[in-house]
């Protein structure tokens, strides 16, 4: 049975790690995810779990060690943030292309520079094309729930891909909030035992991991990796359904909040979605038909589902907590627009950048965006790639 508790986002993930009790966790500390390996180490020292914790000297090594242990047949995971993820870059691609179901809990923090420890999604978005499944959380509850679902998704034989479960640095990682946690045995039962089909420490069935592939084979390997990413949609949906059936919570690819008859929809990921929902309630009380589409799964990108969900509205604000420095808006904006076009959904879209390096996103910020959407729907041209909450000369 669910139990009411209060925890920070980092505490919630550490609690879930204790419950899952993975075989191996190499990690190197970095703000704001440091508490996760710290708390896990405490659980291990107290005898509450028996994960093999490997304190490594860098994030490149933590991902390398996770790859090694996962290839050997051990359920492996790590945690990081920001530059730590950037330092793993090379290895992220190795994990995905070797089809190793490593789980990484990412506490989103901006990338340098200027050096800053606060939240945006530039770390996760930077790794969007490394072949990892990416799932984002609005609050500590979703961070906990998503972590538990990561293993059954990653380890499914139709998938065999690594999964990154993301939450917003400090905003949820360091905020104590109410949460429902599940019994250890229920979580263990949901996640199940790990029985890899092929692994290095299996003398009866030798395999190679990470060999060179000549051009005659490489392209097929990459194509198969892409097919696995596409197939993961079905598995993500099944696991989400199983989680709902067992624990009564959660969404599949996204949450639709008051969108059924909405004229104006904000498409957003992470903690700011809750703030946007509050704005929607206030606007609804004032007669404005506003709604929020909170994207949970960014990789694989649920393009047809998003296009279908947005089909009936007049205008959508696409909110990127990340700058792509390409003169063409953030990644979410580019991909949502492409999804709409391919599905022949020709609604107004306005791309926004918000919350970089911890810039606060408030209910008022969200309401200003919605008021611009009302203008856009009337035919007023709204500047694309607009920054929310930017300080300007007055």
């Amino acid at each position, binding site marked *: 049975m669910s139990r009411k508790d*209060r925890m920070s986002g980092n505490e919630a993930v550490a609690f879930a790690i204790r419950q899952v009790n993975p075989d191996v966790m190499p990690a190197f500390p970095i703000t*704001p995810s440091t508490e996760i390996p710290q708390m896990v180490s405490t659980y291990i020292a107290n005898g509450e779990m028996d994960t093999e914790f490997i304190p490594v000297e860098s994030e490149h090594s933590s991902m390398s060690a996770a790859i090694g242990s996962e290839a050997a047949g051990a359920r492996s995971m790590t945690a990081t943030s920001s530059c730590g993820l950037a330092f793993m870059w090379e290895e992220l691609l190795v994990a995905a292309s070797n089809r190793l179901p490593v789980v990484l809990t990412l506490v989103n923090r901006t990338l340098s520079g200027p050096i800053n420890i606060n939240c945006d999604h530039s770390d996760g978005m930077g790794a969007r094309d490394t072949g990892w499944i990416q799932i984002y959380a609005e*609050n500590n509850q979703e961070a906990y729930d998503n972590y538990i679902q990561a293993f059954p998704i990653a380890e499914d034989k139709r998938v065999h891909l690594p999964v990154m479960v993301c939450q917003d640095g400090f905003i949820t990682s*360091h905020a*104590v*909030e*109410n949460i429902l946690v599940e019994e250890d045995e229920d979580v263990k039962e949901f996640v199940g035992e790990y029985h890899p089909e092929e692994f290095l420490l299996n003398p009866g069935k030798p395999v190679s991991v990470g060999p060179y592939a000549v051009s005659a084979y490489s392209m097929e390997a990459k194509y198969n990796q892409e097919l696995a990413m596409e197939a993961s949609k079905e598995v993500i949906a099944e696991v989400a359904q199983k989680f709902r059936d067992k624990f009564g919570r959660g969404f599949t690819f996204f949450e639709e909040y008051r969108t059924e008859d909405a004229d104006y929809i904000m498409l957003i990921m992470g903690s700011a979605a809750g703030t946007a929902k509050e704005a929607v309630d206030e606007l609804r009380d004032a007669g404005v038909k506003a709604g929020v589409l909170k994207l949970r799964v960014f990789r694989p990108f649920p393009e047809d589902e998003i296009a279908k969900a947005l089909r009936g509205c007049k205008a959508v604000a696409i909110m990127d907590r990340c700058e792509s420095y390409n003169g063409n808006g953030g990644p979410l904006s580019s991909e949502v627009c492409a999804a709409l076009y391919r599905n022949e959904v020709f609604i107004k879209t306005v791309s926004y950048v918000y919350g970089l390096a911890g810039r606060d996103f408030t209910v008022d910020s969200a309401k200003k965006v919605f008021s611009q959407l009302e203008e856009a729907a009337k035919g007023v041209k709204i500047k694309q790639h607009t920054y929310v909450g930017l300080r300007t000369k007055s």
Partner: protein
Amino acid sequence: MNGKNIEIRWHGRGGQGAKTAALLLADVCFKTGAYVQGFPEYGPERMGAPITAFNRISDRQIRVHSNIYNPDLVVVVDETLLTSVDVTAGLSEDGAVIVNTDKKKEEIIPLLNGYKGGVYTVDARAISVAALGKYFPNSPMLAAAVAVSHVMEKEDFIKEMRASYEHKFAKKPEVIDGNMKALTETFAALEDQL
């Protein structure tokens, strides 16, 4: 102040325990069945630098994840901040500010940028030193926040805090009674202001 839905902003200096006080308040309110949020704002945190922490306490689920700009209550853990930080910015006139100081309320009011709501003073240093022999302002300021906001009944607060301290200080039981004394002394000291 509506004790059921309340937003609190804490001003302190790094190392004084303002963040801990905010997290303790969230914890103790959770135990009485409330929805809670307790979170710090992190800058280049270092000992002595101004820091802010926040609480939302509500009877319904809290979804907003932003800082608090229009609090119902402000708690100032270090009075030297009054000359450098606009602590009453956005503070509701129906609300209140609590300042840790040995000065009288009349001496503090001129430092509050014309704030017209409730002003309360607590000499957390004197209370803490008398009760604990050391200066830890967060226990008295936590008690003051509860006393002024009525976010929970005093009796429930005292009961839950004892349980909380017994857990937190399991290896240092000698400080439990001192911290409890700091809490009750703060309620007593505020009595004639409430």
